């Protein structure tokens, strides 16, 4: 399986947090507790990857580990929400399979998802 740089690990499993990890050696004092948070199964998403996303924003200098965790949980809620909303459209179409167009419809219909318009081609 060849992954190009631009394709960065879309299909990664949860225990495969590679590619998009500009991790540094220093400044990892909180790595222990964050690892612990994963171990405690508090977050279903890899906190390190979320941290990488946050750091990709040039305006972001520092973020507490709490903030990374909260975003992780918020993201879970977001995913559930958008899936549920899209499901409505699938059911309208008498389908059991959630499709891309269901998500498009949900994004268009719901105000909170307005920020997503234009990000998907």
């Amino acid at each position: 399986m060849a992954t190009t740089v631009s394709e960065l690990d879309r299909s990664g499993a949860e225990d495969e947090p590679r590619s998009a990890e500009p991790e540094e050696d220093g400044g990892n004092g909180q790595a222990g507790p964050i690892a612990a948070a994963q171990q405690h199964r508090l977050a279903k998403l890899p906190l390190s990857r979320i941290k990488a996303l946050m750091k990709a924003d040039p305006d972001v200098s520092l973020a507490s580990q709490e903030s990374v965790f909260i975003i992780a949980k918020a993201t879970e809620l977001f995913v559930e929400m958008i899936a549920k909303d899209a499901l409505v459209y699938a059911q309208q179409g008498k389908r059991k399979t959630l499709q891309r167009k269901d998500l498009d419809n949900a994004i268009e219909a719901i105000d909170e998802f307005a920020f997503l318009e234009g990000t998907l081609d």
Partner: protein
Amino acid sequence: MDGDSTTDTTQLGITGEYMTGGTYVLQTQDDDGDESFNDHEDGNGSKDHFREQDIYLPIANVARIMKNAIPQTGKIAKDAKECVQECVSEFISFITSEASERCHQEKRKTINGEDILFAMSTLGFDMYVEPLKLYLQKFREAMKGEKGITPVTVSEGLGEELTDDSFTGQLPAGLITADGQQQNVMVYTTSYQQIPGIQQIQFS
């Protein structure tokens, strides 16, 4: 599977276990404040500067969360999963950017939990705030447990770790003094911190 340099664990300064197991074992360095991460020493920063839109959360995790939201009999098309994957990255950037702005406005450098909650509220995700506060509480409790077993050296630890948690050891309430008389003397000294693995200092 390892095509690019970013998967070189030695370069990233992480152990092999990090890549294989479900647990993240990163080499910790306690010289830093444990509240924030910063970007001083990005050894491979120039090489691995990914744009926000290139970073995604693993699709398996995303798909699993989606499945929670739909009936068991339901299925999710692959392009739908990918779509949500992209939306997620967008969502995180969106929230982070808003939180970061507020932080700057208040002349602070570190984005904290409150900033995120405020950003949620501002951006129309007000309904998340209460559940998130609950999760935050759980997180804090879990972290308290972890902090308690952080090893400290005798010389440094005594200065910094003098919290109430450190004073787990006390002299017994009754002391037998030299003249054989038992006295109820409570001697509360700093030397009796019972930090596991640390040699106790006896002041006589």
